[in-house]
């Protein structure tokens, strides 16, 4: 699904160069749920931006869904982003003036789908996150957890192959965080590849694979241990 080979990213400010990624190589298979962890400044966000085609790498090769996207122009990158990638942000990033349905519709608008197609996808996505009844509400009228579920619906509405989540539970309390995480797992089970940047070791454990970044490189490529099934927290989620 995603293949990065010797990706580098250098930010230049005058004569000062900051190496955010140093020859990062990573393979993610279709259907995987990968958690990317690492300390602040390790390059997690830069990695996610490059993976999401929001930034171009300074060097290296990036193949997404069998297409080399390293040197794509803006129009093609935007189209690829729209068709193949869904984003979930820590701060939800909903558009405050638009109601829930219109927020979910945003990526579909750039897809060029007909009105009826868009309506169907919006209904399906909101149904999936359990917010069908809140279509006409504004984001400000929802709780943080509900807003993040809207953001997930928006990310899923266009049926992307890759879902990129940047600290998706970072702004939520523990109960809402678990609900969101459960939703992500459900989405992954349906076949969508998920790469999630997180600081939370518990969330990282629940992903299928953990990639640890340090100084812009992958430092640890070991599968994480499965979470203890008897954990009270986990039981609570299942319940």
């Amino acid at each position, binding site marked *: 699904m995603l293949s990065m080979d010797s990706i580098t990213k250098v930010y230049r400010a005058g004569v000062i160069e900051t190496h955010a990624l140093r020859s990062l190589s990573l393979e993610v298979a279709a259907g995987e749920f990968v958690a990317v962890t690492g300390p602040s400044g390790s390059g997690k966000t830069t990695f996610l931006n490059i993976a999401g085609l929001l*930034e171009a790498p300074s060097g290296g090769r990036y193949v997404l869904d069998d297409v080399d996207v390293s040197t794509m122009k803006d129009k093609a990158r935007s189209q690829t982003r729209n068709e193949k990638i869904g984003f979930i942000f820590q701060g939800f*990033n909903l558009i405050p003036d638009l109601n829930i349905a219109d927020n979910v519709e945003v990526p579909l*608008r750039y*897809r060029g789908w007909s009105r009826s197609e868009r309506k169907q996808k919006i209904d399906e996505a909101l149904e999936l996150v359990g917010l069908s009844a809140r279509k006409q509400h504004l984001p400000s009228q929802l709780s943080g957890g509900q807003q993040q579920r809207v953001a997930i619906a928006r990310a899923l509405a266009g049926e992307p192959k890759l879902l990129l989540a940047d600290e998706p539970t970072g702004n939520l309390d523990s109960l809402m965080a678990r609900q969101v995480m459960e939703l992500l797992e459900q989405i992954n089970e349906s076949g969508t590849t998920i790469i999630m940047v997180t600081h939370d070791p518990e969330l990282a454990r629940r992903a299928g694979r953990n990639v640890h970044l340090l100084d812009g490189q992958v430092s640890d490529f070991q599968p994480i241990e499965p979470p203890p099934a008897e954990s009270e927290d986990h039981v609570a989620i299942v319940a």
Partner: protein
Amino acid sequence: MLSYYSKLAWLSLKRNPLLSALMVGAIALGIGVSMTTLTLYYVMSSDPMPLKSDRVFAVQLDSWSPDEPYYDRDGGAPPPQLTYRDAMALMESDIPTHHATMMHRGFAVRTENENLRQEHKSGRATYAGFFPMFDVPFLYGGPWTKEQDESAARVVVLSRETNEKLFGGADSVGEIAYLDAEPFRVVGVIDSWQPMPLFYDLNNGAFTETEELFVPFSVPISKEYGAHGSTNCWKPEMIESFQDFLQSECVWVQHWVQLDTAAQQDAYQAFMDGYATEQKALGRFQRPLDNRINNIMEWMEFRQVVGDDNRLLVVLAFMFLVICLLNTVGLMLAKFLNRAPLIGVRRALGASKSDVALQHGVEVFLIGLLGGLGGLLLSYFGLLAVRNWYRGYEYLAKLNPEMVATSIVLAVLAAIVAGLYPTWHITRIQPAVHLKTQ
């Protein structure tokens, strides 16, 4: 997508109503001031007879003082009016297709209807050639005849409005109207006719109404009436009677000719010069030979209908528009950059740079459109103020369809120009930078 972007633009304007009002207001103010001055300039400088303005000429003969020219400018140009006797000599020519000497002269007017009060009406004494030369449209009847010109016949042509007041708008040809208590037979009623500027007698204002009635030039002469207008004399002369005045060197009548071909124009120039040469032999026309014919647009230029002040005012108004636009650029830039995080989200969700540019372009268009409508409203009130404050601008200070369309187009173009840089700037933002900051 255009309807979608229009919806987003409207939401954006509603989100920051004060900022939006400032942007629309800045454009409206610039457009309002520019269009007010431009409308005045446009009407002042427009061609009042576009179909034949290059074939109708005002005549100048230099009968002025040998000591100094009438005008200091334009090579010491001749006076704008003629002496009575020179005008009468020119009326003898058979070169012009039409020609007419004329003067402004008012009359006290009444009819046999005792219910109508006698009213003073502005009038023009002229020759029958006036009407075909200036393409005057007739509602009823027509001009008087050449014979009636020569015999000082008591005949009158009424304006449409005068006919409505005196005869209720009916076909009044053959009816009697009393001018200064003397009966005149109505021979024609002209339809609505308002050349703007009113070029043929600029001594009485270029932006006034056409006269309310017309009589043969010979009528006031036979009644020994002078003109209600400008009379200029340079020669110390004993003027003890009206006949003395008619034979004097005072200039007080206007003379216009229609010369359809270059040959006619050359022949008429030769005729004028020949006449002046004859007069020189009689001791008149002591200045160097300088007789001129000026077509309508040349005449308005020569008489400075559009003054340098007006041109300067238009330039200043457009400079003001530029200042308003610069302010709009700043406001738009602030507004657009304030929304950079939202644009970052849209970019992440698949919007290309061109999508972002189009979204903002539609918003800029909407701002321009609203600014244009606001500008039109301000222009309307601006022109209303001009009409109320300055006499003689009643016909000048009116919005016409061309200026309405120009206002809207200019406002939209101005907004697009103002929006180019902010729009370009917003397409250049790095979405990744702003996604964390929303």
